[in-house]
């Protein structure tokens, strides 16, 4: 399925959308397609909104942001996010804030069909004061109080991965973040991959399968679809672009021009990549291949 068709069919105005991937495997391709199709009133949830949600906020797709760390890693701020939250922007943005552990636990609960997840957290912090969804429960054995967060069950989760077969049996290596939890917790799942492989490739190493096809609604082939994020073993992170975003996002006009040039102004990912000359030469991964293991009996 094409990314255009997958987004048209599975991402709707007003949805709660999770595009996960902790630094690694963030589906910028899907985020850009959502911007192109002009989705509105989305509740965007992610541990680290990163550049992709800053772009979607800047493009006016978001009504609300659910998150735990909203910065440009190692660089600075997400300025579209800051303008909206600091009331300096054209649009406002409702926020619901947790810590990383809280967001991880929310997705873990959603994936397990539990209504909440207990954690030793938040005591002494001001987060529960500003987020009434952070509550507590009493242990039926020790009587101690534990913090709780509510399950997060996205309408749609979009996962970028190294490879999957046609049925959506998906393999990921390197940082896995909360990709598995986000997929199992969602009502609909889109998997975007660097390589579409034969089922036999998946079956030759079943311990590498993170997400089974039976929870996947659409599989999309989109090489370099995570750029400027990265895919271990395929291409490096485009750190130069993350640095450049500081200046682009600081100015709404520049941000809008960026969206016109690289998102709204291109029909698809191929056209986006054509506008990045020398990308492959600059970021293609070197070879550090692992050895196989024996699954025989």
């Amino acid at each position: 399925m094409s990314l255009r068709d997958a987004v048209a069919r599975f991402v709707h105005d007003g949805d709660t959308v999770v595009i996960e991937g902790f630094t690694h495997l963030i589906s910028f391709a899907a985020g850009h397609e959502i911007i192109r199709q002009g989705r509105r009133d989305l509740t965007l949830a992610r541990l680290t909104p990163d550049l992709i949600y800053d772009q979607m906020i800047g493009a006016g797709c978001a009504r609300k942001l659910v998150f735990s760390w909203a910065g440009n890693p190692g660089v600075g701020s997400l300025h579209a996010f800051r303008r909206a939250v600091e009331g300096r922007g054209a649009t406002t943005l409702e926020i619901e804030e947790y810590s990383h552990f809280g967001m991880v636990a929310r997705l873990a609960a959603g994936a397990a069909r539990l209504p909440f997840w207990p954690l030793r957290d938040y005591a002494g912090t001001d987060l529960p004061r500003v987020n009434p969804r952070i509550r507590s429960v009493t242990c039926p054995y020790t009587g101690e109080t534990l913090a709780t967060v509510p399950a997060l069950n996205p309408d749609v989760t979009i996962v970028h991965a190294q490879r999957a077969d046609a049925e959506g049996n998906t393999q990921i290596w390197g940082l896995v973040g909360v990709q598995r939890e986000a997929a199992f917790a969602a009502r609909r799942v889109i998997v975007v991959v660097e390589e579409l492989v034969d089922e036999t490739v998946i079956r030759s190493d079943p311990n590498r399968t993170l997400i089974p096809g039976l929870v996947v609604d659409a599989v999309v082939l989109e090489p370099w679809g995570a750029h400027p994020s990265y895919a271990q073993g395929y291409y490096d992170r485009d750190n130069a672009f993350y640095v450049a975003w500081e200046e682009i996002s600081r100015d709404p006009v520049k941000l809008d021009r960026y969206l016109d040039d690289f998102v709204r102004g291109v029909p698809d990912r191929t056209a986006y990549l054509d506008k990045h000359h020398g990308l492959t030469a600059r970021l293609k991964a070197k070879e550090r291949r692992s050895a196989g293991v024996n699954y025989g009996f």
Partner: protein
Amino acid sequence: MATLAARELADGEVVFVGIGLPNLAANLARATHAPHLVLIYESGAVGAVPERLPVSIGDPALVTGSLMVCGMADVFQLFLQQGRIAVGFLGGAQIDRYGNINTTVIGSYTNPKVRLPGSGGAAEIAIHARRTLVMAKLDRRAFPEHVDFVTSPGQRIAGRTRRELGLSGAGPVKVFTDKAILETDEATGEMVLAALYPGVAVEEVEAGVGWPLARRPRLAAVDPPGALELRVLREVLDPEGLYLGAKGGAPST
């Protein structure tokens, strides 16, 4: 700052590392006196041996050649909450008299003057790491008597002790600034002056904090960075000077 923080790490300890100066400090320790230091990044890389200076805590260089990669649910439940982390590093826009750290907001939460990134894993580090080391540039605005927002709990939170709140780790016990080292006083929970860097006057430090700064009866001596430490920092870890001379270097958490 990186050098002094590095010296705080004992060989074999499990250290929860953020990017910036904490990453420099941890890798400096590993390259000098603590070769068996186990570096864990909240992204899930355990026993990382980065071939290059990681730009983010999710840098691919943290994965290649690491001992283990696990999901973030494991990082927070099996490592941090389980109490397996000996040392955590934190930075912050505000650190107050009692070691409370703010990385969330300057001004009010609903109507912020400056919106900061938020907790990330910082709250969990300050709660669960057996001890937390803080790195920040000394500055009166950065060291108020009370932070605008408690993202990561210190030694006294609205008058309550960590024990009363059931916090398992020791919390922020030491702050490395560019002029001096502050430590929390066990009795009062206050940040007090523990050591001055060479050539720094007490008054400069007092001027950099927003409360009457108490001091240890005897201030510890601070050795400047040695030749080996400087060589490793400048030639091996940060040849491009991305962080050296950089100010504060708050970890992304």
